[in-house]
């Protein structure tokens, strides 16, 4: 057996209040793909950042080719032959594609000046080698999300490295681009590079990985060869229990029509979207990331203005021009980007919860704190929020608990329809179950729930009916009875049509 190119040993890293990594180790071998597997928040990205000089580990050592090295900056990691496609897009809209690829390590001429010509040429070469079909000289902002991701990949490849790290590189790519990425990974393997591949998608892992390492709660809980290990085993390591019990059994008691959206259109984002939700129903919205589901929901919520279409709520036509209008009408929205759109960071829990309900808690426009605390307590405790007090700043809460604050905020408004956009994205398995259970309770109480999710098991496990979107259009609406996962994937990816064509 060959020696690993890169070895991590005893790495620990803590953030205020969070132990992100605890005494983890990892080996990467030349010409092999190692998959790093773990639930959200398991510490995968944190490890990537310690390997690329962005975070400094609290303890532990990093060895490259047997030599212990320090990585004080992002540059030093590149110099040590480590490069990464980060989970967050390290991209700059206003700069050109070529510069996005070379920012920080641009080629210079003998006067130390950036050599734009070489840079553009090399960038184009890299892009062409990936068959990306991107012109290196255009500004990045002219590209769509998938192409942007390819630029991020090209950026990583522009560094001459022995170790290539890919943190969820396929999350934003369509099937075709994913296939191209696989080809690329094969090429890199042949080149003798060591690859660390992070993904939540098992089909992918089984297809390209040679080895795996599993993290749970910042600790390493297992490793081995992919071909020797069945998927169920890895899942058990990852979650600590078996997966099928995650979704609560539920007896659907579906009533009359509550929300009916028809022909909703937007000049650039979506067209002719129609769907309806009944009382006590969970309507799933499935699609690949970037299918336009969030845009549709935000139009229903009054954030963006649709160009056409009608929204009928309980028989009355509504046209919310702002979220405030939508909330007044009884439609609420739990957004996808929790930190940016969901919670008012910097404010305490109770203020977050009472914000949309101030009319109820106040008297003649004057605040009544006692009422606010009461309201906040009622709903946060129902959701089993974990916090030290109601005055705790929401930014100090974990992702799952922040999500609970957002949901509590909306429940307090006594809505008719609640839209949950990726409600369990980035939240831990326990909270996830709590959210799912709670969704069950919501519909049991007669609310209507719209759940946007990119997670197939979640969509299949929770929805009564499923709307599938692709490229801004509704492809199909299907009943969730004996539905095969493959059906949904095909619909979402448009594979059926492609085969037909």
């Amino acid at each position, binding site marked *: 057996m060959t020696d690993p190119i890169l070895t991590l040993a005893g790495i620990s890293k803590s953030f205020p209040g969070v132990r992100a990594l605890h005494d983890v180790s990892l080996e990467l071998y030349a010409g092999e793909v190692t998959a790093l597997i773990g639930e959200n928040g398991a510490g995968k990205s944190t490890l990537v950042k310690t390997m690329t000089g962005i975070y400094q580990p609290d303890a532990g050592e990093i060895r490259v080719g047997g030599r212990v090295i320090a990585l004080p900056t992002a540059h030093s990691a590149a110099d040590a032959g480590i490069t990464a496609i980060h989970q967050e897009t390290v991209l700059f809209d206003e700069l050109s594609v070529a510069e996005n690829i070379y920012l920080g390590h641009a080629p210079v001429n003998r006067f130390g000046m950036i050599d734009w010509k070489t840079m553009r040429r090399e960038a184009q070469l890299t892009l062409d080698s990936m068959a990306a079909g991107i012109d290196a000289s255009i500004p990045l902002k002219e590209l769509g999300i998938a192409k942007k991701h390819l630029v991020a990949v090209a950026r990583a490849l522009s560094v001459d490295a022995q170790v290539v790290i890919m943190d969820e590189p396929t999350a934003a790519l369509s099937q075709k681009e994913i296939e191209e990425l696989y080809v690329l990974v094969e090429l890199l393997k042949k080149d003798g590079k060591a690859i660390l591949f992070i993904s939540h998608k098992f089909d992918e892992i089984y297809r390209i990985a040679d080895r795996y390492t599993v993290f749970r709660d910042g600790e390493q809980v297992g490793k081995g060869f992919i071909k020797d290990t069945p998927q169920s085993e890895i899942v058990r390591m990852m979650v600590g229990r078996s997966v099928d019990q995650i979704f609560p059994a539920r007896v659907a008691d579906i009533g009359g029509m509550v929300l009916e959206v028809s022909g909703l259109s937007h000049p650039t984002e979506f067209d002719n979207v129609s769907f309806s939700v009944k009382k006590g129903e969970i309507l799933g919205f499935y699609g690949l990331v970037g299918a336009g589901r969030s845009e549709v929901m935000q139009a229903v919520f009054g954030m963006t203005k649709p160009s056409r279409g009608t929204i009928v709520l309980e028989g009355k036509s509504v046209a919310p021009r702002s979220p405030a209008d939508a909330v007044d009408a009884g439609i609420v929205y739990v957004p996808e980007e929790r930190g*940016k759109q*969901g919670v008012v960071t*910097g404010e305490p829990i109770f203020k977050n919860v009472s*914000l949309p309900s101030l009319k109820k808690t106040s008297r003649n426009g*004057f605040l009544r704190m006692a009422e606010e605390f009461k309201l906040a*307590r009622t709903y946060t405790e129902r959701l089993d929020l974990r916090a*030290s*007090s*109601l*005055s705790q700043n929401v930014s100090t809460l974990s992702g799952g608990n922040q999500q609970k604050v957002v949901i509590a905020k909306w429940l307090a408004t006594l809505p008719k329809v609640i839209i949950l956009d990726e409600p369990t994205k980035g939240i831990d398995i326990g909270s996830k179950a709590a959210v799912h259970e709670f969704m069950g309770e919501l519909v049991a109480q007669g609310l209507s729930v719209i759940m946007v999710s990119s997670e197939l098991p979640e969509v299949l496990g929770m929805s009564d009916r499923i709307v599938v979107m692709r490229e801004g259009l509704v492809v199909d609406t299907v009943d969730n009875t004996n539905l095969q996962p493959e059906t949904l994937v095909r619909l979402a990816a448009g594979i059926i049509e492609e085969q037909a064509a």
Partner: protein
Amino acid sequence: MTDTTATGRRLPDRLNNPLKSTVLSWESLLVLVAIAIFIFNASVSPYFLNAWSLSDMTFNFTEKALIALAMALVIITGEIDLSVASIIALASTLMGLALNVLGFPTPMLVLVGILTGLACGAFNGFLVTGLKLPSIVVTIGTMSLFRGIAFIILGDQSYGGYPRDFAWFGQGYVWWVISFELVLFLIAAVIFYVVLHRTNFGRRIFAIGNNATAAEFSGVRVDRIKFVLFCLTGLMSGVAAVLLTARLGSTRPSIAQGFELDVITMVVLGGVSILGGAGSILGVVLAALIIGLVTFGLGLLNVPGIVMSIFTGALLIVVIALPILWNMWKERRA
């Protein structure tokens, strides 16, 4: 109030004693600073501790402080208004016009001043919220525009001849040494305090400043509130224009030049975060008082105004840097 949840836990309202956080607050720092300056002034100048002196002192800052109250709200939402001084110039000019050309009586003059301010504020508000332009740039533009209009109207002329009862707004006393300006400021401060800290409106202002997107997603009408606040700042500038015009008894287009930076200094010194989301009216009132004390105290020593500004500039940086340095020092020790 001992009800518990199914899990048997109960979330307390707050953990720390509210009294303790009051003691350690920014406002108490400002109170200490104010007291220190007061004592310093009293010890270096025999003329300081005199009711009339102290009363005169308030004239140096009340007009700016009135605007600072509204500006604080604008800055808490993360915006800024640099055009306030120019609004004063335009409002004052239109009042002069109303008096000299149209012969308006005093109540109408006051109305003209306030409405002009309101209109200017609405114009700013429209550009910022309607056209989605950055407020700092918009108000740099309107700063030239508003004062420019005053120059177009007045040129090298001036308006004077304001009636006696009008002059009372800027020169009159309500009781003994208590001037009308001071009383108006104190009333306004109480109103702003209540609005910002005790009403839904104020709560929403903070939410916008902390995270405008999330606030919007929570059903706060962000643009409408920002618009109202720009109008309010314009309105307070109009009020300040009435007071200043009445105090000076005349109008020139160059009136109130440079006020905007003094106003913003008051707001920032008062602990309002320039990035939005934090601040208190009490802090702003204290900061106005501190600036008044510093400038008046130094004035009694005949220190030129420009040298005073070194003190206010340094005060601004030091008072903001101190807590940061303190935290850094504590962290290093830990």
